[in-house]
C-alpha cells in the first residue's frame, strides 16, 4: 500500500530531478551571481549588491545591444507573421503543386542554423555573392550586406524571416483549416466581400494562432545566437550584437561572470513579462470559437 502512495512521486522524480538540476537551480545560481563580481578563476566571489545592474544600465554598449535585440525581434516577428499569413491564405489549397510549394518553403526550418548561416554568408558576399549579382541585373550596385553597420542587422533579419516563413505558414494553414466551413458558406450567402470576410471572420477566428505565433516568435527571437556568432560576430561596430551573444561574449571571452549573469537576469525578466502577458491575454482577449 505504501508503494501505491509513493508511486506517482517515483514516476515524476527523474524528470523533476533533471529540471531542478539543469533549469531551476541554474536560475537561482544566475541570480546569485548577478550580485557578485567574479572572473571564474579567482576562488572568491565578491558581493557587490546592485552594482552590476547599475553598470549594465549605464553601459552604452549594452544599451545598443538592447536596442539591437528589440529591433531584431520586432522586425523579424512582424515580417514573418504578416508574410506567412498572406502565404497561408494563398497556399491553403489542395493539389500536388501546393503541397510541393509548402514543402519547399518549410525545408529551411529543419536545416541546421550553422548551414543556413554559412549559406547566407556566401549569398550575401559583397563581391561574389548571388544576391548582389541579382541586384546588379536591375542596375543596383553592390550592397555590403554584412560588413556595413547600416545593413548588417537587417541582413540577419532577412535570414531569420527566410528561415521562419515556412513553419509559420504551415501553422497558419492548420489554423485556417480548423475554422468550420459553414461559417464561410453563411458569409457567402450574405454576399459579404472577401476583404470583409477576412477581417470580420478569418482574422478573429485565427487570433489564438496569431497570438501563439507572436509570443513564441518574440521569445525565440530574443535568443538569437547562431547567425550572429557565425555571420557577423556581433559586428561591425556592435551593430548586430544582441543579448544572448552579449552574455556569451562577457562570460566566455572577458570572464566577467557576474556581469554576464546580470544581463541574463534582465533577459529572464523580459521573457517572463512576455510569458505572463501571453497567459493573461490568452485567458481574456483571444477569441475562441
Amino acid at each position, binding site marked *: 500500500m505504501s508503494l501505491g502512495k509513493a*508511486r*506517482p*512521486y517515483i*514516476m*515524476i522524480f*527523474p*524528470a*523533476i530531478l*533533471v*529540471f531542478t*538540476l*539543469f*533549469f*531551476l*537551480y*541554474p536560475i537561482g*545560481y*544566475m541570480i546569485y*551571481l548577478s550580485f557578485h563580481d567574479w572572473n571564474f578563476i579567482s576562488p572568491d566571489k565578491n558581493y557587490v549588491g546592485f552594482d552590476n545592474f547599475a553598470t549594465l544600465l549605464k553601459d552604452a554598449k549594452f544599451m545598443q545591444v538592447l536596442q539591437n535585440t528589440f529591433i531584431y525581434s520586432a522586425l523579424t516577428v512582424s515580417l514573418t507573421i504578416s508574410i506567412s499569413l498572406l*502565404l497561408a491564405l494563398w497556399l491553403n489549397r489542395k493539389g500536388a*503543386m501546393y503541397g510541393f*510549394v509548402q*514543402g*519547399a*518553403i*518549410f*525545408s529551411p526550418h*529543419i*536545416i*541546421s*542554423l*550553422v*548551414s543556413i548561416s*554559412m*549559406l547566407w554568408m*556566401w549569398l550575401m*558576399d559583397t563581391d*561574389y555573392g548571388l544576391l548582389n*549579382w541579382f541586384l*546588379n541585373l536591375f542596375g543596383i550596385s553592390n550592397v555590403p550586406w554584412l560588413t556595413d553597420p547600416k545593413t548588417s542587422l537587417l541582413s540577419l533579419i532577412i535570414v531569420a524571416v*527566410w528561415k521562419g516563413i*515556412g*513553419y509559420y505558414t*504551415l*501553422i497558419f494553414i*492548420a*489554423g485556417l483549416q480548423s475554422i468550420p466551413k459553414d461559417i464561410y458558406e453563411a458569409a457567402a450567402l450574405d454576399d459579404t466581400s472577401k476583404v470583409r470576410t477576412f477581417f470580420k471572420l478569418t482574422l478573429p477566428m485565427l487570433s489564438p494562432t496569431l497570438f501563439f505565433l507572436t509570443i513564441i516568435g518574440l521569445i*525565440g527571437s530574443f*535568443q538569437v*545566437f*547562431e547567425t550572429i*556568432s*557565425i555571420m557577423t560576430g556581433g559586428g561591425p561596430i556592435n551593430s548586430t550584437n544582441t543579448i*544572448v551573444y552579449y552574455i*556569451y561574449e562577457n*562570460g566566455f571571452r572577458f570572464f566577467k561572470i557576474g556581469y*554576464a*549573469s546580470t544581463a*541574463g537576469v534582465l533577459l529572464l525578466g523580459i521573457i517572463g513579462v512576455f*510569458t505572463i502577458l501571453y497567459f493573461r491575454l490568452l485567458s481574456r482577449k483571444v477569441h475562441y470559437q
Partner: protein
Amino acid sequence: MKKNPLWKVLNGIGLLLLITIFALPFVWMISTSFKTLGETMVFPPKWIPDNLLWENFSKAWNSGPFLKYFFNSTIVALGILVLQFATIIPAAYAFARYKFKGSNFFFGVTMVTLMIPTQLIFLPVYLQMSAWGLLDSLWALILPFASSAFGIFLLRQSFKQVPEELLEAARLDQASEWQIIMKIMVPMAKPVLITFAMFSFIAHWNDYFWPLVMTTTDASRTLPLGISKLREVDGGVAWNILMAGNLILVVPILFVFFFAQRQIIRAFVYTGVK
C-alpha cells in the same frame, strides 16, 4: 475569378517565384560545392562548374576528425532521445492518471521550465558542469536535455484521452501499472511519441549553441561545430570547401525530408499548435 486564365498564369508565376526564393539558395550551395576556388570568384557567377570537383567533399571531411564528430552527434542525439523517453513516459502517466498531493505544484514546475530557454541559463549550467568535472564531455551535452517539459505536456494530453474502462479491465486482469504503461498507454500514444522523437532528434542533431559552449576539444565536439570550423582554414574563406562541408550536414536531412515530408510537416505543425 478562379477560371480567369490570366489569374492562373499569375498564380503559376507566383508559385514558381516562391520555390525559387526557398530552393535556389540550396541549389547555389550544391553548385558552389563542386567548383574550384577560382570558379567561386568568377563574376557573373557560373551556375554549372566546368568539372565536378568531388574532392571538395573529401577535403572538407578530412579537414578534421569528422568520423568522430559524426559519432558524437549520433550518440548525443540518440542518448538524449532514450533518456527523454525514460523520463517523460512515467512522468506524463503520473500527471495524467494519478491524483496526488503536490501534483499541481510539480506540473507547474514542469511548465515553468518549458518557458526557460537553454540560451538563457547556459552560463550557470556551464559553471555547474565545470564544478562536476563534466565539461567537454558528452554528458554535458546529454544530461541537461535528459527530460523535456514539452514532451511531458504533449504526452500527458494523449494519455488523458485513453478511456478509464480500458485501464480497469487491465487491472482486473492483474496487470501491473508498468504493464499498463507499456502495453496500453505507449502503443496508443505512438503517433505523439514518433512526432516528439522526430522533433527532438532534428533539434539536437542540428544544435550548435550548446556544444559550442560546453566543449573545448575534438573529443566531444559534434558535426555542426566541426563544419563551422571549416571557416578558419587558411585565412581566406574557401567557399567551395565550406559549401561541400555544409552539404554533408544538409543532404541527409533534406533527403529524409524529401521522402517523409508529409509526416515531418504534420509532426512539426502538431507540436507547434497543440
